[in-house]
């Protein structure tokens, strides 16, 4: 699954650690999601969408 997490994070000048703190996950989790090595669960995807105030489908795309 592709995602725009890195771009969205960069637009807000957040580091991976900043984003991880906001999502209450580890920085490794953010890194793994950004690089497409780990697909988040639906609850975590919703949390990400809420944080960026965007619909899930505009952040995550089926590869």
């Amino acid at each position: 699954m592709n995602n725009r997490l890195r771009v969205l994070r960069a637009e807000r000048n957040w580091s991976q650690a900043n984003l991880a703190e906001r999502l209450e996950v580890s920085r490794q989790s953010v890194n793994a999601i950004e690089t497409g090595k780990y697909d988040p669960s639906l609850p975590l995807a919703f949390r990400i969408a809420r944080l960026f105030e965007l619909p899930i489908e505009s952040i995550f795309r089926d590869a």
Partner: protein
Amino acid sequence: MKCSPKTQAMKRYQTRNGIAMGFYVAAILASTYALRHHHPGGILTVLLAVLPSVPIVYTILLMGLYLRQERDEFQRSVFQQCLLWGMGITLALTSVWGLLEMFTSIPHVPIFFTFPAFWFFVGVCTPFIRRQYRSSEADE
């Protein structure tokens, strides 16, 4: 790559697991010494023989507890993969060795070694599993 701080659940798990392992080693040494030097006999022999299994069962319960308490789903997933690889390799090796023991003359290895072997393989697999999630592009 800088290591991120461990999650609270992982810290708790590692502390409890470390204590349990300490009890495990102490129980092995105490049971072995008592059984070899004092030959208690009867029910006491049975109790001393199974004493080290108490911390073993506890560490298995701790794994389940960690998986329930870990709120970081990615860390939970990595831990599960490490356990699965450890279990898979241990089951495969013990099965092959068991069959060889039945049909050939290779030396007998006590089942007791299954648990340390499992942790050994979990330990060997963990860095390889973690490495596949590392990225050179990671920022801090």
